[in-house]
């Protein structure tokens, strides 16, 4: 083969420094001194491995967007840099971790959930028969999307208490 295709770029802790400007926008400086405005931070595997391989991108619109590089793991960064990235990720991803299902009932083709989550007790409806609204992501992990598009995650259905699991299983049989 003549030349290898261009792969992704891995950013080490020394390659990039993040900081906020006085308007609270996230910016970054690359090792060669390049200044990046309005840095965007994405997860490459938000469900299976949320804190590794973080994509650092720039560009205000979808067509302009391009990737600067990937950060292999948040753990490799210093505490202040890690905090900045965590904050940016928290602004992009909004998901509730379900720890208990208080009740799950069906009415007219919708499931009405009443759950304890890391963001407090939430009640929400989901479409009853739409399997894509409650996806098994492997290893007992389930991602639930309610009718508004809010997202909920059950980290491992086997680790929920038996009552919650029974309620879940009665309707989510796939």
């Amino acid at each position, binding site marked *: 083969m003549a030349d290898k295709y261009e792969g992704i770029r891995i950013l080490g802790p020394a390659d990039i420094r993040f900081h906020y400007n006085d308007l609270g926008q996230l910016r970054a400086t690359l090792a060669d001194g390049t200044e990046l405005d309005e840095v965007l931070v994405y997860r490459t595997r938000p469900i299976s491995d949320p804190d590794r391989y973080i994509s650092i991108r720039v560009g205000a619109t979808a067509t302009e967007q391009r990737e600067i590089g990937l950060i292999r793991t948040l753990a490799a960064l210093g505490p202040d840099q890690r905090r900045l990235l965590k904050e940016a990720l928290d602004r992009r991803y909004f998901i509730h971790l379900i720890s208990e299902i208080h009740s799950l009932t069906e009415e007219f083709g919708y499931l009405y959930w009443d759950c304890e989550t890391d963001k407090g007790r939430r009640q929400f409806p989901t479409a009853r028969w739409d399997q894509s609204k409650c996806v098994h992501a492997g290893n007992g992990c389930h991602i639930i999307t309610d009718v508004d*598009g809010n997202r909920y995650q059950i980290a491992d259905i086997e680790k929920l208490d038996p009552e919650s699991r029974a309620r879940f299983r009665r309707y989510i049989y796939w």
Partner: protein
Amino acid sequence: MTEDVCSLLRVMPEPLRAELARQGISESQVLLATDSDLDFNGNYAEHWLVITAESVLTFALDADGAHAGPRFEVKDLEKAEADARVGSGFVRVKTAAGWLYVIRFSNAQANKFTKAASKLRLMLRGVPLVCTPADDADIRRCLKCKRMLPEGTSACPRCISKRHVFGRFARLMMPYWPYAATAIVLVIISIGLNLVPPILTKTLVDNVLHEQAAERPLPRWFALVTRAFDARAPIDWLLLLVVILVFTQVLQILVGILKGRLSTIIGNRVSYDLRLKVYEHLQALSVRYYDKNQVGSLMTRVAHDVEDLQGFIWQMTSGFLFNILIIVGVLIVLFTMNTHLAFLVLIPVPFVLGSTYVFWHYILPKHYRYWDSRSKIANVLFAALGGVRVVKAFAQEQREFERVRSYCDRLRGARLGVDIASTTFYPIVGFVFSLGGLIVWYVGGRDILDKVEGFSLGTLMAFFGYLGMFYGPLNTLMSLSQWLTSFTTQANRVFEVLDTEPEIQEAPDAVPLDVRGAIKFEGVVFGYDPYVPVLKGIDVEIHPGEMIGIVGQSGSGKTSFVNLLCRFYDPTEGRILIDGVDLRKIKLSSVRSQIGLVLQEAQLFTGTIQENIAYGRPDASLAEIFDAAKAANAHDFIVRMPDAYDTRLGERGAGLSGGERQRISIARALLFNPKVLILDEATSNVDTVTEREIQKALDALTKGRTTIAIAHRLSTLRNADRIFVFEEGKVVEVGTHEELLARDGLYAKMVKIQTQLTKDKESVDDVRALAAEESDAKSKGQGAGKADEKRP
């Protein structure tokens, strides 16, 4: 304000009002005030967005009061938009310093804040910001109870008046009322007949088979019968009773047959009427209706929902109405026979109802799991066996085996669940159903032993007879509410179609117009959702006979542009003029009969090729059809087919290649002879050779008419007089191919990319060169004259 105007202009809580007052903002200045549920860090909290003519303000509300958050001055803002992220979103504004974030919201509020951002954006463009209750429309939820509506309907199963639906359905049956009335009479007769046999059994046991039968007084009705037939001995009575039993049963069967026939006749006629009505109405509806409703769901309404409504008649004659009446009848008879025992028979009723509940909530869901596993295993097997070459090539047999095994495990587990539940449930239910009988045995038996007045062995036997008719119907009645709900929603889905008014209405003063082909867009703004404009201010003019090429990325508004021209939709703002007349003032039939449409996917219909070509003009002569096919470069391949023009096409033109279908659709458009021709990516689905063939056909078609061609491959535009370049809902470049290349803008960039991608003769320049040679040879004088008259 004491009440919310709408969700975008809500009553502000006292602390917020105080804080606003402190900042010198009076309530009358507030144009938009609404609450969000998140803070910037993604914690649930009460935040407010307040917009006045001068500023955009945010506040965090907690127990201590309102705290001012980010604040922006309207004069500093360039743009505003909702930035949707994963599970939540932000309203953000663009200032000289770049994008800044105003407020965060969870997706539950996304609808509201998308509208708020859109209103702010319009305000920045000078449109006054006004919030009205109309902004609250959320078509997914019931307006009254805010519950989610079932997919594909706007009728809430909880809130719709069931009586209203029944009334309306009953009106549909009006033309058949003699049948319906007869059916109801038959229902009552059949219930009466059902109640007869146990009474006969009672007489049989007490007065015929009993040891002292001869000494016992006969029931009055039987005494009359015996006298009429002059039957004196018990042996004659036996024969008489059996004959009566046979007679009732035959009668029952006859009534049943008649009842069944009548109900199918009514049911089929009503659904036939309804189906045609629904289809006729669907056709009249505007295209926008088809955007909101998937074709599949509409098909379900015409094909299945209407059919299922037939079930209504069946439920009346053999289902619920029948069961209710029979329960009432049985109860009346039981209570007249023996009040005390009848009460005892009611004891198991709660258990019977309970078992039905258990079935619906615990046993049936286990079946879902089983059915799902079974269908998934079929899919997995199909994928693994169908893809066996790939599996073997990558040497992944073991992994596929594991995958299949895991699904087999699931299936085994699900089936076990179903079987274990069933083997437990059904015996218990059987016992519950027999409870009534056991009670009757004991209590009734004791009464007989005690020689209680008026209670005989015959009465006991009759009781058993009636019991069999009691618990069964009770069991089915448990699903009554379920049936009612599904019936009313289905009926509503159908009625909803009938009640929808076509959105594109012809103006009362609309005029027919003989189109010349001059088209003008004046400040046209349009969005399928009015808050998300797809076309953001289009001002273009097209001259009669001109060929316009339209290029742009997908989503840039090309197709919306032609959709407006066909008047499938009306613009949100601005207007479209054809020959100087507002499109809305021209008769719809007159517009559409002069616009020809060739789409990316040629839509052919079932029928012969000849019928398909003559689709728009069924009266066309054979010679005209052949001419059109010849010009569309289709005649030769059609003639070579065994059945030539008589070839029957399947659904959607099955049996022809994509290029052949497309050429037939071009011939159809040619024959239709429209003044304005629209080609929507007519050649994007075919290979290069076929494209050339189609291109030749198109050349014939575009000659002398206003043509608007949307093209993905720029090579299609070799003959365009002018090219419109669309970007994000605007026309950003206009000019000839050469002018646009010289400008070195977006078009030039697109041409460069395509030339790089396709190194064969597909680039615009190459194809143009080719075309120039061809057209030079063909028609020199005409081309030159045309160009002069057409260019502005």
